[in-house]
């Protein structure tokens, strides 16, 4: 019996070793062949677009790029992948931490192992790095959209679309999330500069498009003169657009959505959505790898870089150069 088991084990390991030959050779980190690892928050077109930007920069600088995505936006999903990356010991780790508190310890582990950490899209601690203060200042840089500015851009676009007068409100995910909170805040601040626009209470749908749609219906029932809605993230935007359509107010109530998810071009053409504020995940990925290359060569890099926004609407959506701003898988 034992002999059988042994024979079986030997056969297994032969197959295992044979399979090795089929794998691409992996470089290990050294000065001539630097390795950079990219660990986003979750499988999502936004992050796949970021990956493509990162790949472009990696090719330019002859860097080997590792890429793994957690299957859910969850610390228990991201940390084991992070640990496997630490075991590979890349020169630089580009990461979108899924929680600003919980990821401090695990990322410190990477930094202590001599891996340079740059956060992309999301941050740990308060997002201010290399200050010498607090336990979360060790990452070298934070590259992301300035969400506050994104909210302002949304407000300006919406104000323009409704002729600078009327009633609007912000449909949001839930309170307590740094990115969407900042967008709503920027939206409110900017709208204060438009005295003829009245901003109603923000509604929270907890990332449920259905609930966002019924919010629109409820707000319309109370304020039939509603002129515009700002959906501060993907599901808020999708739900708000659906709600406006169900109410038969398409084109009358202007819908601004954050993020240019795949298919947004069709939604703009059909009039379901009036304006989309595209972040530039491709640029985030590109600059993250460029910064990584600089860090590897001991060049100084800025501790923060904001990537901009592009406003997509019916006037420009058919232009070929706009296609690159729509996220894709």
């Amino acid at each position, binding site marked *: *019996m034992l002999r*059988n*088991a042994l024979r*079986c*084990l030997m056969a*297994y*390991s032969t*197959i*295992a*070793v044979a*399979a*090795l030959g089929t*794998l691409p*050779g*992996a470089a*290990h980190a050294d000065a001539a062949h630097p390795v950079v690892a990219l660990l986003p928050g979750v*499988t999502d077109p936004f992050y796949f677009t970021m990956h493509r930007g990162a790949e472009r920069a990696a090719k330019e600088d002859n860097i080997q790029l*590792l890429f*793994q*995505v*957690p*299957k*859910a936006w*969850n*610390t*228990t*999903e991201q*940390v*084991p*992948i992070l*640990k*496997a*990356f*630490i*075991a*590979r010991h890349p020169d630089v780790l580009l990461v979108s931490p899924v*929680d600003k*508190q*919980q*990821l*401090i*310890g*695990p990322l410190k582990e990477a930094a202590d192992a001599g891996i340079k950490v740059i956060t992309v899209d999301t941050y740990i601690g308060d997002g201010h790095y290399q200050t010498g203060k607090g336990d979360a200042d060790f990452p070298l840089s934070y590259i992301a959209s300035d969400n506050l500015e994104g909210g302002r851009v949304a407000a300006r676009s919406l104000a323009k679309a409704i002729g600078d007068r009327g009633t609007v409100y912000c449909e949001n995910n839930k*309170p*307590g*999330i740094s990115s969407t909170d900042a967008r709503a805040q920027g939206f409110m601040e900017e709208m204060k500069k438009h005295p003829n626009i009245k901003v109603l209470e923000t509604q929270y749908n907890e990332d449920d498009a259905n609930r966002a749609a019924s919010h629109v219906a409820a707000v319309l029932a109370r304020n039939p003169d509603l002129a515009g809605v700002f959906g501060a993230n993907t599901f808020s935007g999708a739900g708000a657009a659906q709600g406006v359509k169900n109410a038969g107010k398409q084109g009358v109530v202007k819908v601004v959505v954050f993020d240019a998810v795949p298919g947004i071009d069709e939604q703009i053409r059909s009039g379901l959505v009036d304006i989309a504020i595209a972040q530039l995940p491709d640029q985030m990925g590109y600059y993250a790898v460029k910064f990584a290359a600089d860090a590897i060569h001991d060049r100084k890099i800025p501790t923060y870089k904001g990537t901009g926004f592009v406003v997509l609407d019916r006037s420009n959506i058919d232009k070929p150069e706009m296609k690159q701003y729509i996220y894709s898988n």
Partner: protein
Amino acid sequence: MNDKRLDRLALVSKVWPWLFLGSLLVFFEAWARISAHRSFVFNAYNLQSIGLAASAPLLLAVGQTFVIITAGIDLSVGFVMGLAAVCVAQFTIPGGDTPWILLLSIPLTILVCLIPGLVNGVLIARLGVPAFIGTLGMYGVARGVGFLAAGSGMTVSVNNRGLAWLGSGWTPVVLTVVLLVVMHFVLSQTRFGQSTYAIGGNPQSAIRAGINVRRHLFAIYLIAAVFAAVGGIVYTARFAAGAANAGEPMLLDSIAAVVIGGASLFGGTGNVVGTLIGALIIAVIEFGLVFIDVNAFWQFIVVGIVIILSVLIDQYKGRLGGAQ
């Protein structure tokens, strides 16, 4: 069908999870040596990471093993774990940095998590609600309560020396191993364990044999809740913050570990060592495939195939056993 061939099949079904785990390690070791010139297995950091990755679903899976052996299932453990993660953070915060607060906050957390276990027990053992439905209800309730307990934010940060120690280095792994040894003993060497198998094998004859099935099932759902609570406490200790969704991805991993370990969802079979191997297989695959830079989606496929394979081997063995 001669006896010799049957023997061999029985052996295969017994050793194949070990073989599979072994060959995975051999494979990753060879890969690491050849293309990265370092060791995969003989590396304390790698072992610790795999141990930590396996311990989270394992804590849920130990309780789940008992539940599945009685032909039940507990879908609520993931969010009970999240509830515990939030509770232990909230209960520890008033104590500041003093470790003594844990003497209060940990028992209190376990006590809170006994409530979903109790309700599951009442529903399933007393009222005869199918385990799948009863615990699905509790899945929702524990989830909602967990988020409410966390307040407006998603996570509750807590900085406490004692808790930090509990979550640092090898401590969570050692704790998990100790609990595994205890529960292995309970399941394999005690009357309680025997009764568990009896109930899963045939509840009618278990009743006739004088086992108090209701009370026993009650106890088993309490055990599952306690282990989920421990999982949540360890989570908060490791990440210095509790989150209500902490255990969400762990639920299916825990069931997968039990099934890969040789338990049948129809009850009567399964053991703690098998569950351990199942959890290790999943953790090694997930860690190893990232290590060798294979596309993340292959992890799902590989783990999925392993689950199907383990069930097939079990069924084949069962059919042969029946034919004999």
